């Protein structure tokens, strides 16, 4: 095969077949991966959850992962948050002409590895090649589906006053990793993306209790944005203990340098749970026993007052409002 992607790879020709067989089939191998126009599949009875997500990230490779891993985790986690075991995924690529084949292979390999880890099968795909400069290297869209575990009923609208809020690990690492990988601010720190598939973690919690009100994965916009979304959807207030929010020291250092708020940095492997107070300890210990959520912590609770607001209890024993970010995050000096 040539060593870069050419327009011929997207033309449905022999080269397209070479690409599919040489790169995708070998990495995604499973009995349901179709060679026809569509995959023919079966699902269990009951409700299903289905979601789709597009991924563009620059750079496409970063400490702790790449766009391929991200594309699997993102969709798997979206489905998992509805209490569904992710079962099938499809993926669609838009690749810029001239993209190195070797790099595509790496991305496909991490997609295959991550899918296996998440217990999901990639069953169909599509590849388009866009002319040089028409896209930024590679874009991936994944769509996924899975059966919702019986008895689970979660929604962003179900948070109730008194619920405890649990975050599954230290926050803001993915956003911070990407910021550093772009190397615009010449800062070095040993920080890797938190990017991870999280169905196992959710399953572990559901094995303990199905009385869970909200599960949300904190992606772009970070945990802070999720909290505001839930406060609005559920018509409740949120009270956070600022000193209990887990933040990696390196992330804290970068944030201090650039004047950024870790609560608004993206995560790609962190969940936020809203659970009845009676279930909180069970959920917390189930999470702490799982990979990727060892540092789970209770960071606050839902309140009846301050509807639609996120209030922080601060280091001086006072309350303050978590500022809502307006638009892009920019480093500041004042």
């Amino acid at each position: 095969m040539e060593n870069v992607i050419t327009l011929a790879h997207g033309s449905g020709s022999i080269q397209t077949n070479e690409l599919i067989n040489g790169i995708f089939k070998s990495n995604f191998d499973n009995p349901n991966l179709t060679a026809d126009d569509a995959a023919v599949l079966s699902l269990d009875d009951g409700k299903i959850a289905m979601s789709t997500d597009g991924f563009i990230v620059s750079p496409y490779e970063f400490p702790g992962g790449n766009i391929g891993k991200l594309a699997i985790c993102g969709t798997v986690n979206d489905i998992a948050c509805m209490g569904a075991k992710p079962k099938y995924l499809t993926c669609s690529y838009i690749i810029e002409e001239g993209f190195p084949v070797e790099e595509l292979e790496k991305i496909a390999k991490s997609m295959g590895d991550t899918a296996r880890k998440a217990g999901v099968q990639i069953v169909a795909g599509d590849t388009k090649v866009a002319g040089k400069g028409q896209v930024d290297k590679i874009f991936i869209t994944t769509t996924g589906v899975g059966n919702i575990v019986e008895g689970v009923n979660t929604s962003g609208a179900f948070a109730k006053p008194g619920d405890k809020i649990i975050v599954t690990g230290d926050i803001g690492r993915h956003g911070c990793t990407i910021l550093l990988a772009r190397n615009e601010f010449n800062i070095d720190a040993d920080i890797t993306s938190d990017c991870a598939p999280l169905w196992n973690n959710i399953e572990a919690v559901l094995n303990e209790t199905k009385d869970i009100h909200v599960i949300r994965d904190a992606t772009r916009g970070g945990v802070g944005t999720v909290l505001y979304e839930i406060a609005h959807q559920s018509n409740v207030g949120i009270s956070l203990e600022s000193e209990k929010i887990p933040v990696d020291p390196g992330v804290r250092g970068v944030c201090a340098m650039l004047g950024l708020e870790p609560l608004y940095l993206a995560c790609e492997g962190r969940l936020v749970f809203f659970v009845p107070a009676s279930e909180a300890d069970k959920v917390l210990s189930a999470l702490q026993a799982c990979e990727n959520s060892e540092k789970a912590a209770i960071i606050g609770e839902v309140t009846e007052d301050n509807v639609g607001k996120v209030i922080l209890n601060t280091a001086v024993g006072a309350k303050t409002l978590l500022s809502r970010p307006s638009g892009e995050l920019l480093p500041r000096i004042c």
Partner: protein
Amino acid sequence: MCVGLPARVVSVNDGTAIIDANGAKRDVRAELLDDLEPGDYVMVHAGVAIAKINSDDEAEGSEVLGLLNIS
């Protein structure tokens, strides 16, 4: 104004220092400070080490309140 970042000096070389704030490292200009040595703590602003820091804020607070007999 002025976001200041307290950071530890890792190394100093010809007017430039590598500083470390909780593991976040960067080159900064160090020529405004004399006799800077690795291990010193400095206040960094916009890529320049603007002052040495000679104690932590609690010791300082206790000194300030003590001087004014507020305690």
